[in-house]
């Protein structure tokens, strides 16, 4: 059961590659694998918190003030995560910069609160948050890894290619982000097309 859900989060409904949610952080913070993973985990934490609270309060919140309530809840968790990171994980906090407060406008979180947690039980909502979070984290880590390998020949700071080889700096730069993501989406589409044909 959970395995099926997990596949949904990682592949069939992958937030970044399939639903195209949260592309801003996906492009911005993936200059390396570690920042990508950090962003993914921070987002997952917020997602867990908001799904939890929204699911608990789904019968209390009147429909008319649903969206403002969700925004307040999400913003609260974003700020909490931000504060905690600043206090205890400062280097990561600094590396992610403005994209931490901007988790609040990540369509993934509001989307899951609105489309899933407000209609489902606590348990299902938590599972949804976990699998979606994992999917998001994996996507960002993957994109970060691809860009880090191509851009600097290393992965999570570990040098794969001898430092004397000049890697393509462009992958660490904004154009490389768009191109990498574009090619990865194309690869997924290609697999999907092949599968359909087969």
């Amino acid at each position, binding site marked *: 059961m959970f395995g099926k859900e997990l596949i949904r989060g990682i592949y069939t409904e992958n937030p970044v590659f399939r639903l195209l949610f949260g592309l801003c952080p996906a492009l911005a913070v993936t200059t390396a694998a570690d920042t990508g993973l950090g962003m993914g985990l921070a987002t997952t934490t917020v997602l867990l918190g908001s799904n939890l609270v929204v699911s608990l309060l789904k019968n209390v919140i009147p429909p008319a003030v649903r969206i403002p309530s969700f925004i307040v809840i999400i913003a609260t968790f974003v700020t909490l995560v931000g504060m905690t990171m600043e206090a205890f994980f400062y280097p990561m906090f600094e590396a992610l910069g403005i994209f931490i407060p901007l988790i609040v406008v990540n369509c993934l979180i509001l989307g899951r609160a609105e489309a899933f947690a407000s209609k489902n039980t606590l348990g299902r909502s938590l599972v949804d948050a976990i699998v979606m979070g994992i999917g998001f984290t994996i996507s960002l880590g993957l994109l970060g890894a691809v860009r880090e390998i191509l851009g600097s020949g290393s992965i999570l700071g570990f040098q794969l290619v001898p430092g004397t080889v000049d890697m*393509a*700096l*462009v992958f660490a730069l904004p154009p490389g982000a768009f191109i990498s993501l574009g090619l990865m989406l194309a690869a997924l589409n290609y697999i999907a097309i092949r599968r359909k044909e087969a």
Partner: protein
Amino acid sequence: MTDKFVVGPSPHVLGPKTVKSVMWEVVIALAPVSIAGILLFGLDALLVLVTATVTAMILEALVLHRNLKPASILGDGSAAVSGLILGLILPPSTPLWMVVIAAAVGILLGKHAFGGLGNNIFNPALVARAFVFMSWPVAMTTWHGPLSLSDWTTRVSVDVASSASPLGGAQHGLMEMFLGQTAGSIGETSALAILLGAIFLIVRGHIDWRAPLGYVGSAAVVAAIYSFLGGDFALTTIAWQLMAGGLLFAAVFMITDMVTSPVTKTGRLLFGIGCGLITMVIRLYLSAPEGVTYGILFMNAMVPLIDRYTVPKVFGEVKSR
């Protein structure tokens, strides 16, 4: 796919023209600059040109025909043109593996990702150049001075110390610049050779004068205003700006590319003017020494918009949709 005709309205429907014949004539037009580049920069230049052209042709054959038969490698010549142009706008000292990557980026990302010839939005050679410039900025801004006659009589390739290009601050006389005896990209330094190619293309009716005129004209105007504001206005300054860097080469061989420039006449003029303005603003007011690549790439992206707003109203067309 191979027979796909390039979308382009008159005025050059003079006879039965195929993509193939046009492309091979462009290659002929590129001959003077290629020869000049090899004479000026030696064996290094020759290797870069050959590598770029061959890589582009092989990749094109693999994408289109999925085989490497001689006929498919020769193809319609468009890949050869793109590859050769790419080689000509690279520094002669570019490591050959970078040339291979550049050609691959140009053909695959610049051209076939958008659907191949006739569909590509950006000039493949420029996409490739921008990509490699941003990936290996140091290698791509290391220029070598031209060879002298004595270098040629002693040995073909010499280790020439790196030197500044005119836009990088080197001072050269206008005659040196005209002949191309300056540091720079292989095909961009010799104004004389570029003009020979241009004359051939004009005589054969392959280029429309509007885009180049808008380009060179607007660049000249910006250069004039700039030198006037700087208090050292002189015709030589303008001539210098026009001959420096890749401006003339781009005017003749890149902004005239039918696929990546507007179809309307007014559009082409606007396109040329836009390219010229951005190129000169980058050169004169921003920190990058050269703005040709970025100016044209930027305007390539504007082409659909330019076309959209300059298409003449078809008689009887109902306004708006």
